[in-house]
């Protein structure tokens, strides 16, 4: 088992730079999730750790050893691919044992490892089938089994669940989480799905256009996002962003006025001192609106449509053309009226400057 360290890692494809100096420490045994929209460089970063892509600059170290020039097979890693990458012409058993056999691993040991992996994943009945005869979930298990057989120091997962249907995805997510508890091995997991990231990770790494935006525990990212991008990316439905201007800066904090409705003013207890009149973004999550009159300010919005999910309702609304989503738990009549007035609790609101950086 091993920790990892990325130091100033850069990746270029020709003139195009896709990873701009990534720095990251991963503890031994940690479950780390790389998350971000497509094209953010998360898969490239993972493939560089695996050794499938050259490192254009900086260093990658596994268990304290720089591995930039080490072959993938010598890095003590195993990887599970998005398409599973099972060898279609080999049985499940052969798929699991192929790598070990090709490297001259003793036969008895190979058999032991394969049997062990099959036990862990409960795929014993599938061993003589070919990948084409398996369901998506079963293929996924075999792919993970192939990684387990290698007894690696680090597991790498490249969007392993994105080809499964919604129900299976939840099920496999739980299984991967269990597997991590059982094996205790370092795991690095790439996904574009923030729910997967939130549920699986010890530590989330949010990436955007080749840069690490924030690193932290899932709830820390939710409670304390570093910038507007992370605030919007973590959480579902995503955080509402309303245009505002700085109205006053005083002892108790910063007062912002909504552009859509300047009468709505909110004072946030933050210590930064932006210029009066400068444009900012006020962020609040759909689930954090309070009842009218209970927050530091009230906001009246025009209701467009409401979705009732039973335990909760989402109201899609607008205020002077700016869209909003408001969650109203246990309220099936929230969208009945043409307008809705809700409270804005100041300690649940965030302010971001024009560049999207958080004002603290």
């Amino acid at each position, binding site marked *: 088992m091993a920790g990892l360290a990325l130091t100033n890692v850069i990746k270029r494809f020709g003139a195009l730079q896709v990873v701009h100096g990534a720095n990251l420490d991963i503890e031994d045994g940690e479950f780390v999730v790389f998350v971000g929209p497509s094209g953010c460089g998360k898969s490239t970063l993972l493939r560089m750790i695996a050794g499938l892509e050259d490192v254009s600059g900086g260093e990658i170290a596994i268990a304290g050893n720089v591995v930039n020039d080490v*072959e993938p*097979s010598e890095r003590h890693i*195993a990887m599970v691919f998005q*398409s599973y990458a099972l*060898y279609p012409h080999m049985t499940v058993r052969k798929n699991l044992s192929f790598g070990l056999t090709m490297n001259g691993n003793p036969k008895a040991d190979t058999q032991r490892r394969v049997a062990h992996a099959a036990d862990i994943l409960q795929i014993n009945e599938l061993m003589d089938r070919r990948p084409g005869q398996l369901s998506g979930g079963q293929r996924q298990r075999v792919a993970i089994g192939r990684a387990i057989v290698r007894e690696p120091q680090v597991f790498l997962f490249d969007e392993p669940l994105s080809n499964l249907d919604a129900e299976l995805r939840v099920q496999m997510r739980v299984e991967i989480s269990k597997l991590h508890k059982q094996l205790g091995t370092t795991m690095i997991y790439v996904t574009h799905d923030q729910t997967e990231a939130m549920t699986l990770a010890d530590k989330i790494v949010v990436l955007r256009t080749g840069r690490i935006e924030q690193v932290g525990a899932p709830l820390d990212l939710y409670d304390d996002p570093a910038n507007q991008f992370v605030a919007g990316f973590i959480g579902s439905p995503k955080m509402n962003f309303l245009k505002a201007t700085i109205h006053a800066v005083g002892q108790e904090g910063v007062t912002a006025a909504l552009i859509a409705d300047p009468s709505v003013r909110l004072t946030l207890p933050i210590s930064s001192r932006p210029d009066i009149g400068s444009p900012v973004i006020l962020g609040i999550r759909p689930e954090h609106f309070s009842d009218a009159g209970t927050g530091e300010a009230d906001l009246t919005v025009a209701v467009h449509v409401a979705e009732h999910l039973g335990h909760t309702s989402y109201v899609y609304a607008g205020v002077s053309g700016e869209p909003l989503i408001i969650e109203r738990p246990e309220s099936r009549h929230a969208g009945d009226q043409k307008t809705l007035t809700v409270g804005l609790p100041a300690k649940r609101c965030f302010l971001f400057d024009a560049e999207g950086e958080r004002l603290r």
Partner: protein
Amino acid sequence: MRSKSRSLLMRRLALHAALTPLAIIWLFPLWMMFVFSTMSDYGIFSPDIVLWPSTQFIENFQNLQADTDFLRAMFISITVAVIYTILSVMLTSMAGWALARYRFAGRSVVIAIILGTITLPFAVVVIPQFIMVAREFRLANTWVALIVPPLFNSLGVLFMRQAFSMMPSELFDAARVEGVKEWRIFLHIALPLARPTMAALSIILFLASWNNYLWPLLINSRPGMMTAPVALGTLIGLTKVSWGGIMAGAVLLTAPILFVFIFLQRHFISGITAGAVK
């Protein structure tokens, strides 16, 4: 509804009325090749129209064997075609693999040269090839001369490259992470998966070698080292020659490949159409 089904019937009739005579014309030369091969020369050159096979095939073949050692020529043709096909599939699949799956210095140059010259006619190289093989290497009338020079054919490279690049790259990455050596990835994963493509390619290459005429005619013209088409070609145009025998030879040249065609039509067709996919 009634009128619709009637016009459909008319269309169907018209289609078959147009296509059937064309099909008969198209089959006619092959049928006559077979009929002639069973007729005596006397029968062939009689004023009667004979469209039905007779019984003289064996005699015709004996005449052919007397005119030119056709069995020997068939043996050479078969051996050359088999060895050529195996070698060419090996070479071109290795090259196709490299071009499909590795990034390396000079890759685009190699691809550009292959693509840029693939449509050049063979005529443009035949003179220097002949000078090189016959005069410089002194290899005229040898097996090597028949087999090796035609291996330059780059169709297989493009064909195999296409097949390999259609395969998901994660498959090979997975093996790479598992520490499987590159040549073993090629041998144990890529090649087995490319089997249908290799089958189609093999058939096309075998056919090309089997029917190749100009190069064997130039390079192996000594009796005893001629391929079957060359041996048969030497008889055409001679005056004192058994035409029944020539036709028997034509049947023997055509029949084996015809059987392959009937049973493996799908591979044939995918081999021929592969060039058309861009």
